[in-house]
Structure formats: structure tokens, C-alpha cells
């Protein structure tokens, strides 16, 4: 009986006008090659986030969607939120 564990990014979605990238990471446990458990972890990548340690697939999405123009739009939006207060 062989138990294996693998972690994969099984979902990438692009959301809202600021092109946030939703990343879902699945941890899959298999017994003799048959999946017996799957758990999820999620994070969201905004245009100004550090993605230096992201997966190659995420880096491709960042390069495609997080343009300088998008970073500026997101930065302006964040500043407006901060200025508006809580």
C-alpha cells in the first residue's frame, strides 16, 4: 500500500476590473494511485503583489494581465479606499 501526497494549483480565475488572480491549491492524498483525500487552500493575487515565488502558470497570468496600466489603476483604487477611511 503506497500513500502519496501531491500539491497542485488546480484552478486559476481572473476576477474583476483589476484582474485579480484567484489561485486554488489542492493537496491530494492517494492510496495506490486512488485519490482518498483532497483539501483546498486559496489566495488572491492583486496587481501589486510580489509574485517572484509564484508558479510559472501564475507568472504567465501576471505578465498577461498585470500590466503597468493595471497596476496604476489598482494603486489609484487602493489609495481612494485608504483616503475614504474605514
Amino acid at each position, binding site marked *: 500500500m503506497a500513500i502519496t501526497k501531491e500539491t497542485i494549483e488546480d484552478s486559476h480565475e481572473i476576477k474583476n476590473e483589476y484582474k485579480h488572480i484567484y489561485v486554488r491549491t489542492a493537496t491530494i492524498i492517494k492510496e495506490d494511485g486512488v485519490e482518498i483525500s483532497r483539501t*483546498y*487552500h486559496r489566495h488572491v493575487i492583486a496587481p501589486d503583489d510580489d509574485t517572484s515565488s509564484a508558479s510559472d502558470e501564475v507568472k504567465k497570468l501576471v505578465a498577461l494581465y498585470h500590466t503597468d496600466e493595471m497596476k496604476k489603476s489598482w494603486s489609484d483604487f487602493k489609495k481612494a479606499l485608504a483616503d475614504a477611511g474605514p
Partner: protein
Amino acid sequence: MVSQLNVDKIYNEGGDNDSGVNLATNDTVKFDIAGSTKWTLNSSGNLFPAATSQGICFGVTSDTAANRLEDYEEGTWTPIIVGSSSAGSGTYSTQSGTYTKIGRTVTFECALTWTNHSGSGYIYIGGFPFNAANQTYYVVQTEQISLGADKVSFTARIAASSNQGFLINSPTSGGDRAAIAMDTTGSVNASGTYQTS
């Protein structure tokens, strides 16, 4: 053995409450329409749609998007403390979060304890697993954060179109709520519900 049986309808006239489809082997049951599989019942008894846009409609007798439940997910996320002016980073001794998403509703809980945070500006709690569709306030419990005299903190906010937002305090004597200045050390426990788009 008959490999395929084509019929228009199947009637059980016995009424003995044991009608059903019985598979003698460990197999799946597919529900096809016009030659295309729409749902599959697997050998463990779980039912799967062919597409994630499909769901189950409640309270209606025809397909209505507002009545269709097509998403359920539970998992973990990693909450972080972010400075509003400069995000910075800190050292976390507690950093955990869970969520359950049902349709567009996200229910979450999280716990954070940090030291040596380098951020500046106001304290944001971030890292939520989905963006909020609208600004949403939720309940927090804080410790070790400098709130100022006569202030109490029990709420925070996720900003619209974002997955982070202010930690808030309020004067005990009344008055306007305010953002809390960045603190190098602190602890937050929180839970709440918000809508994602």
C-alpha cells in the same frame, strides 16, 4: 445479458417501495440527455454535474439563476497584516484561516498573532480567499494593539473589489469609527460572512 435496453418509460406498478436502479458491480451511473452526460453518480454515491455552471434549483419549478446552487467549497486561507501605506511584513506565531463558500456567500474565520511588522499607515487585515463584492464589516477580537485612550476595537472591514481592509476602532463614548495605526505587534481573531461576485 442485454447490453442496452431502449424504452420510453419504466413503470413500477407494484408499489412496494423498492424501485430503483441496481448495479451489481462497482460502477457509475450516468444521466444523459441527447447523448450528452449531464450528471454522474459515482460508485461512492456522490453526484457530479458535467459542468460547474450546473446546479440544483430550490424553490422553483423552472431553471432560475437566483435559485440555482452551483458552488460549494471549503478550505483554508492565510490571513496577513498589511500596512495601508507600505505593506511591510511581519513574523507570525499564529496565522490560520478557514472558509466555506456556498454560492456567492463566503463564511470565514481567522487568527493572527504578529511581531516585528515593518508596515506603515493603518492596519489592514488581508489575504482573504475571495474578493468582496461590496464593503462588508465583520467581527474581530484584538489584543496587544495600541488603540489609543477610550477606544475599543471589535470590527473590521473588507473593501469592495478587494480581499483586504481596515481594522477599526471606535470611541467608547460614541463618535466616528476610525482606522487603527499600524502596530508592530498584535493579535486578532475574527469571523464573518461576505458576498463575493
